[in-house]
């Protein structure tokens, strides 16, 4: 059989730039997704975790006898049981260690103390209550700014005497690292010579990504073959395989990690948690599959949170508002164990992109990480590593400066934005920004919303005592970690991969090292291949998440799938096209240079009708090849990005604040994003809506609060704010397109921009509404109660 030539149009191809409907949706909206908790294996047991009620306490004894005696209980594991396996502690991504099960003391509330494995989850839950743990309470450290006081409680006794950490010298028993970037001397000189300086203390509160699906796994050890399979909610299954192999001693070829459908990750599912480790130990010991699934309280209390940066920002400027220097000092609260998810050499992530979209000649940033009696974490919640904190700092500081100079907040931005002709732009911190036209984007937004009209309205409202605020954010992100010469995780370079196989009849399957969690990879990767190879998207199957079949990759977080994974996809497809060109030349009996590519076929230049479609070429690849060419049509590409990508945007927010109740109403939110080449505009819009909504959640209500005793106040969805369609404002989206010059298809990544950019935009709007009362900053979240307290303190709520 020979394939026949058909005409492929943009409609049937559904390549880059088309709003192809999401291929994932039919199964999700019909409830046919396959999540970890849907996996049921024969003979499966259930694990449940005994957790500490104390934030800091010594464990005097653990009595598991009553729990073990409960019918249906198969095992109760404590640190003592894991010790012989050397699995009572595990390495973290940040170069620290973390207790898998509490070893002699607990260091945060809800810390894992013991694990019960039982016939079903009801028996497991009952048995958890029968484990008797005798604690002796210890003094609790909650305030990160007091962590390195001389008399602060010692949290990590296991580190006693260790003066060197993974990132240099430790100066105190609760000190983890000091990280610095930029030219301190130049900054000091600039501050001395400045016409004007401003400083501002800001807290970026601890928040939790709170994916709808909590974390969990099903671990299954086949004793006969010595093979371990773990179905797991993981954003980085391949890295997890390597870690599991290193920890368990099993050959990596005997370990298979499968990430099935994932109900949202947002950074929460990057790390390895004690629940996974204990489920794996339990299945190896018991020889039966073991499922562990967190409940909501466990997810919010004990798995990775984000932010908790206590920031002191300073700007120096001339009297015209030109910024001459930036200085930011941060105390970073990392909780009881340093389990931050960062590239190994970046203890403060990419925080030194904090000069933002502005041409700042001198800059210096310093971050000191400290231990407190709080849960370990510090992941990038819908952002690249520590980008949200960096963007928040600079976008707030530039507004503080504008207020000091009594300058309009758009005008001060125009004055300082990096100009289009400065790209590629070298920042004071050493980043090379790839491309952008910031002033054009700002102009477009100001025109779209009638900025001057809004300012006029604000002045009129102020005169009547009404509170209206206009917030601006002109942000730049650095995403797509990253070049392997600087970026690695546990020593593995942060490349990513794609493998494509074209079948004889012209359809294809592709597998990637990334893993979708709602991003729509099954839709968008196929569009890239469609554009490169002329195979309709609908004929391309995308698979990810099974380490036995997919090529090695570092996973999906930090907006890296498009900058890294999509680049690998495009380049793998181009390798296939290069082979297809040779086959086409052979079939057409023409020289390779004499044929040209057109949508889905190679044509002999200047000879109408002399052409071979990809479908015909695919068939030939299996039976009619040039002399000496190996059969088949497939390729794999491991892409090591030459640089990060720098998506950017301009957001504008208008809020009205009820001065008597503190209720904030977001009247208008206009989001312009430039993510370079747009692969699927509909998915981009969806990503932006989702990111803006999560940004709204952080700004308006999300916060992980501890009382002075280390009790987590509010770890259920009664307290932890997840906005629904009812609370969520209407979003207006817009775009410009400035392709990345170093990316194969010019795409930069977009999913995190709306989260990163919207949060300072909300803050700037709220502060702008109160600026006439002398307010330069007001920490999130802006719940009605907190806002009312502020209004009351300012006296703005008096009739």
């Amino acid at each position: 059989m020979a394939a026949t030539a058909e005409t492929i149009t943009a409609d049937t191809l559904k390549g880059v730039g088309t709003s192809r409907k999401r291929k994932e949706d039919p199964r999700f909206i019909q409830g046919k997704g396959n999540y970890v908790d849907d996996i049921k294996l024969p003979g499966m047991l259930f694990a449940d975790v005994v957790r500490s009620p104390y934030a800091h306490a010594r464990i005097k004894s653990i009595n598991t006898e009553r729990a073990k005696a409960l019918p249906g209980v198969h095992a109760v594991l404590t640190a003592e049981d894991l010790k012989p396996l050397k699995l009572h502690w595990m390495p973290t991504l940040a170069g620290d260690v973390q207790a898998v099960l509490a070893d002699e003391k607990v260091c945060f509330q809800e810390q894992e103390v013991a694990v019960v494995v039982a016939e079903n989850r009801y028996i497991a839950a009952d048995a958890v209550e029968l484990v008797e743990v005798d604690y002796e309470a210890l003094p609790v450290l909650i305030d990160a700014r007091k962590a390195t006081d001389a008399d602060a409680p010692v949290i990590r006794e296991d580190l006693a005497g260790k003066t060197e950490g993974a990132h240099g010298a430790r100066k105190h028993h609760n000190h983890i690292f000091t990280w610095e970037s930029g030219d301190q001397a130049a900054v000091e000189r600039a501050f001395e010579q400045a016409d004007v300086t401003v400083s501002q203390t800001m807290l970026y509160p601890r928040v939790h990504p709170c994916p709808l699906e909590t974390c969990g796994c099903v671990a299954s050890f086949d004793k006969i073959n010595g093979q371990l399979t773990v179905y797991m909610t993981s954003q980085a299954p391949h890295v997890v395989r390597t870690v599991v192999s290193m920890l368990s001693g099993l050959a990596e070829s005997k370990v298979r990690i499968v990430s099935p459908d994932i109900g949202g990750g947002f950074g929460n599912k990057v790390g390895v948690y004690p629940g996974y480790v204990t489920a794996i130990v339990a299945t190896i010991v018991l020889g039966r599959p073991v499922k562990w699934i967190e409940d909501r309280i466990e997810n919010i209390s004990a798995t990775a949170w984000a932010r908790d940066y206590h920031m002191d920002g300073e700007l120096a400027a001339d009297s015209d508002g030109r910024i001459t220097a930036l200085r930011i000092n941060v105390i970073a609260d990392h909780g009881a164990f340093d389990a931050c998810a960062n590239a190994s050499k970046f203890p403060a992530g990419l925080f030194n992109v904090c000069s933002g979209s502005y041409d700042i000649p001198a800059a210096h940033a310093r971050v000191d990480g400290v231990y407190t009696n709080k849960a370990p974490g510090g992941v990038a919640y819908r952002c690249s590593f520590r980008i949200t904190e960096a963007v928040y700092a600079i976008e707030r500081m530039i507004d503080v400066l504008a207020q000091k100079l009594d300058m309009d907040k758009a005008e001060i931005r125009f004055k300082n934005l990096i100009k289009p002709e400065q790209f590629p732009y070298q920042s004071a911190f050493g980043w090379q920004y790839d491309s952008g036209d910031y002033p054009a984007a700002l102009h477009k937004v100001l025109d779209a919303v009638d900025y001057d009209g809004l300012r006029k309205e604000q002045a009129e409202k102020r005169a009547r005592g009404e509170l209206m605020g206009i917030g601006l954010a002109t942000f730049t992100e650095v995403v797509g970690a990253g070049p392997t010469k600087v970026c690695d995780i546990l020593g593995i370079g942060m490349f990513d991969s794609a493998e494509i196989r074209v079948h004889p009849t012209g359809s294809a399957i592709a597998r990637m090292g990334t893993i979708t969690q709602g991003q729509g990879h099954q839709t968008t990767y196929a569009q890239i291949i469609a554009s490169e190879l002329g195979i309709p998207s609908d004929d391309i199957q995308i698979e990810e998440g099974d380490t036995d079949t997919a090529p090695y990759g570092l996973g999906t977080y930090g907006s890296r799938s498009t900058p890294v994974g999509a680049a690998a996809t495009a380049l793998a497809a181009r390798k296939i096209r290069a082979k297809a060109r040779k086959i086409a030349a052979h079939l057409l009996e023409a020289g390779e240079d004499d044929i040209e590519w057109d949508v889905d076929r190679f044509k002999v230049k200047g000879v109408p009708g002399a052409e071979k479609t990809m479908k015909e070429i695919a068939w030939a690849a299996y039976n009619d090849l040039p002399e000496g060419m190996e059969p088949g049509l497939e390729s794999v590409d491991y892409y090591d990005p030459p640089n990060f990508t720098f998506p950017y945007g301009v957001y504008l927010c208008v809020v009205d604040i009820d001065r008597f109740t503190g209720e904030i109403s977001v009247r208008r939110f206009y989001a312009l994003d430039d993510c370079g080449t747009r692969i699927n505009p509909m998915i981009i819009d969806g990503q932006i809506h989702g990111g803006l909504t999560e940004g709204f959640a952080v700004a308006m209500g999300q916060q992980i609060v501890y009382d002075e005793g280390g009790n987590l106040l509010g770890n259920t969805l009664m307290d932890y704010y997840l906005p629904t369609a009812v609370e969520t404002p209407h979003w207006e989206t817009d775009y410009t397109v400035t392709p990345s010059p170093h990316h194969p298809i010019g795409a930069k990544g977009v999913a995190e921009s709306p989260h990163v950019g919207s949060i300072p935009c909300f803050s700037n709007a709220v502060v702008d509404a109160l600026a006439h009362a002398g307010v330069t900053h007001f920490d999130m979240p802006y719940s009605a109660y907190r806002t009312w307290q502020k209004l009351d303190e300012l006296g703005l709520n008096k009739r």
Partner: protein
Amino acid sequence: MKVTLERSFPLDATPERGWAVLENIDEVAACMPGAAITEHIDERHYKGEVRVKLGPARVAFKGDIEITVLDPAERSLRLIGKGGDGKGTSASMDLGARIVPTEDGNCELVGESVVELNGKLVSIGSRMVNQVSEQILKQFGENFGAKVATPSTAEPAADTATEATAGGPAAPTAAEAPSLNAFALLWGVVKSWFRGLLGKGHS
């Protein structure tokens, strides 16, 4: 979280009668809604149980009670209780109580307690803990007053502790009726919450 409460309750009885009730730990426990002594270890050490319902959370604390002061001359009692619910909440209580004679020949019960709670209950119910504690203490005062006013007929405490409840129904029995009034307790919480609101607004 720590809850510190200080209260005094005027009693319609002589100081001697007041002390006679206070020095009997079983009698004192019977006055506390939801509380019971479950085991006498020696005359200073007991095991006890307290059941509280906080909105959706139902908590039964089991723990050890140690009487650290029992001074008939001063008519003063001090006890320390420590326990947990086995489900991720731990609690400790330091309670002091004295019978103080008043000018009319009667007496009052003066008490102060510091309760420290850690764990799940605080995470879920911290906003209600203060109000519920106040209500429990208020009911305790009323029950104690009723007990000293009606000597010798007082029933011994039921074997199992009844459940103090706020924000939810309980199944009352005849024996527990005076010590437990779910509706009154709930209403008390609502009332004091509103008072708190108004207090702020009018200050």
